[in-house]
């Protein structure tokens, strides 16, 4: 059985364009919910023993400390506080107040589980660094694919394979950002350094997925009796099972992290799962169809 993927390219490309547009809109209206790594500020997690204070109790106890943008968020067995100040003085002042709160209850005690403070200059630096890293990945991928496919120049020039892979990648990034924009807006999920690592990994994964399809095209083209469109469709069909199986096995590993890896790593695993899903989708339904569309356009011009 052969799936008619290339023949239905208009449907898939329109769908992907719509999804990309929706992501852009989400980013435009809601933006991304950046965490302390990017915005600067503090994140303090404390655990209370023998006593679980309410959010208002904590807010009241911290009234004496001059804090900006204080957010108190209870978890299963701890409380997470976020505020704009990143100095050690603010940190100690908050801790002292919380200790006083614990001391006022019988047999209660408090432990500091983790503290993250990031100066705003570091946050800005991280943003530009992340942007550069993603840009470098893009450039290297175009160069690498053009080089790897240098022998295939008919009917589509080798650099166009690189550009098609990049279009798929841009789609992937937009999708992940869109999903996290929605998650950030409605569920308060934040974007921190690990998210960048996840995005970069997904880029690598998506490209290697795309390359495997292109590889099959490269192998089939010289000996193919069919036209370009059908050769590509056959190549996709020959690789589609492998693409799906690999993404399933990777996702299984990630699901284990999502459910058993603990709270700290959850968002990271989620970003990777979303990314691997969309990376697999784009290598099948975007990268190769773009090649065909491009080929048709050039033919028409001639």
């Amino acid at each position, binding site marked *: 059985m052969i799936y008619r993927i290339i023949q239905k390219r208009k449907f898939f490309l329109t769908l992907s364009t719509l999804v990309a547009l929706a992501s852009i809109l989400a980013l435009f209206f809601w933006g991304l919910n950046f965490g302390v790594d990017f915005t600067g500020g503090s994140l303090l*997690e404390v655990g209370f023993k023998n006593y679980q204070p309410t959010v208002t109790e904590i807010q009241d106890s911290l009234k004496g400390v001059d804090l900006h943008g204080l957010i108190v968020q209870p978890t299963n067995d701890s409380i997470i506080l976020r505020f704009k100040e990143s100095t*050690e003085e603010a*940190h100690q002042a908050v801790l002292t107040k919380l200790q006083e709160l614990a001391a006022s209850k019988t047999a209660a005690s408090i*432990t*500091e*589980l*983790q*503290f*993250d*403070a990031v*100066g705003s*200059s*570091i946050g800005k*630096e*991280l943003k530009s*660094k*992340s942007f550069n*890293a993603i840009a470098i*990945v893009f450039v*290297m*991928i175009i160069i*690498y*694919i053009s080089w790897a496919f240098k022998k295939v120049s008919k009917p589509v020039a080798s650099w166009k394979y690189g550009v098609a892979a990049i279009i798929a990648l841009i789609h992937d990034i937009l999708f992940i950002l869109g999903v996290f924009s929605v998650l950030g807006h409605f569920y308060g999920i934040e974007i921190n*350094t*690990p998210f*960048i*690592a996840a995005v*970069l*990994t997904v*880029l*690598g*994964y998506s*490209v*290697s997925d795309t*390359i*495997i399809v292109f*590889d099959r095209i490269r*192998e089939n083209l010289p000996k193919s009796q069919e036209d370009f469109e059908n050769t590509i469709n056959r190549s996709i069909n*020959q*690789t589609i099972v*492998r693409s799906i*199986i*690999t993404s399933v*096995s*990777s*996702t*299984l*590993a*990630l*699901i*284990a*992290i999502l*459910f*058993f*890896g*603990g709270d*700290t*790593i959850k968002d990271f*695993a989620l970003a*990777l799962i979303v990314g691997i899903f969309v990376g697999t989708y784009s290598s099948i339904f975007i990268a190769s169809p773009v090649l065909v569309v491009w080929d048709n356009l050039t033919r028409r011009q001639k």
Partner: protein
Amino acid sequence: MSLIQKFSKLSVWSRAWWVLAIIVVFTVIVGLTAGGNVYNKWVKKLAAKTNDIVILPSVKELPYNLGLDLQGGAHLVYSADVSTIAAADRAEAMESVRDVIERRVNAFGVSEPLVQVNKSASGEYRIIAELAGIKDIKEAIKTIGDTPILEFKEQATTTQALQVDASGTAVLDASAAINWKNTELTGKYLKRSSVQFNPNDGSPEVSLEFDAAGAKLFEEITARNIGKPVAIFLDGYAISVPNVNEKITGGQASISGRFNVEEAKLLVKRLNSGALPVPITLISQKTVEASLGSKSIDNSMVAGLVGLLLVSIFMIVYYRLPGLLSVLSLLVYGLTVLAIFKALPVWLALVLVVIMISLVFYTFNELKIFNGTLAFLFAIIGLLLFFYALKPITLSLSGVAGFILSIGIAVDANILIFSRTREELKAGKSVRQAVDDGFKRAWPSIRDGNISTILTCLILMFFGTSAVQGFGTTLFIGIAVSLFSAIVITHTLFVVILGDWLEKRTWLLGVSRSKIENK
């Protein structure tokens, strides 16, 4: 040569058995390296159960290098103000800041403090201190930030009235306003300081001894300030302002401030622990409590085992016999990666990498797809692996996640090979032929796909923050080892186990016979 000749005369099958024997030895080595503590425990139990009749030799346990988020600790980033230092000397000054902080941190009994100098993109100098497993973070921050900056200043403008005390030393009240200007002499040039007592009145003094460069500077400063005061500033306050009577050579000076013995001793201690040549401020910190870290380790272990189990079940259900073989090679893969995470002794790292690379070359040679480019590519990967095998890889939470993810991705090469093998089987080829052709055909895809991921890993490794670097490094090691496990281990197992007996049982390979006949 005769050995190699004899070997090449053996049948494909018996050669594969020899390779398998090497793989088994390899697996035992990486297994004992990765799980030395588990093995040792088992040896002890066995000895206890058999009343000390069976005593197996125990192995040396090498530790994993856990990151801050897994063992608890602090990651501190300081920004250094180098505005007062000439651009050319800044790097050197930062090195001495690092040494001083290292000394201060060592006093806290941190096992392996990591203190690094880092220059940001905007040209700002930073000190990054990683204190793994530290108990009292608050105290550590206080001690590091405690900055005895020792400066020697000379007068910028007119002389002011000076008080002369009993010992004849000019002492200036700190409140008196004088325009002081910095000299080049700072605490950086201090070799040693000690408490001594003034021979005239027995009052405590702090003596300073400069290094060669400092002595020369001191000589110049005293030479041009004869008859004028020179101020010794500590942390921005003048602690002593002696009048210079003559040029002082030999690099000895003393501070005769108005302090008692205790204060003098404390000052000496602070000066000896090192005066920071430049002021620093804490701009970022990340601290994790040890209990949270050990919870994360438990979670990661469970996640890793569940991940491995899920992937294994999936592979066996979907690919049957080849799936089972790939799970075996996945186990060797996991042990190898874990072994490389540890800091291995040179001989062990060398043995492992040489075995891996030569088996890869051997398999390529068997498949007749060996060429210079491939040899070059794998030589580079081998070198990098060797480097990482020697170095301890810091396992952070995201690094562990990278490892678990790599379990899922590691089977990709196997999947590519199986899909190809199935296609060849469906085309009516014999099992042996289909396996060989499946490997050959799948190789270009495996190569190109993995190179692009390795490129991404390299970018991750060079991308500043340590958490991201750790993730990139573990992913790279995972991919490099997965190439070995797919090319060598899966292939060898295939050759040894898959054979003519399977011709009538192709359902074990996930291909029904009717499909073959239809073709």
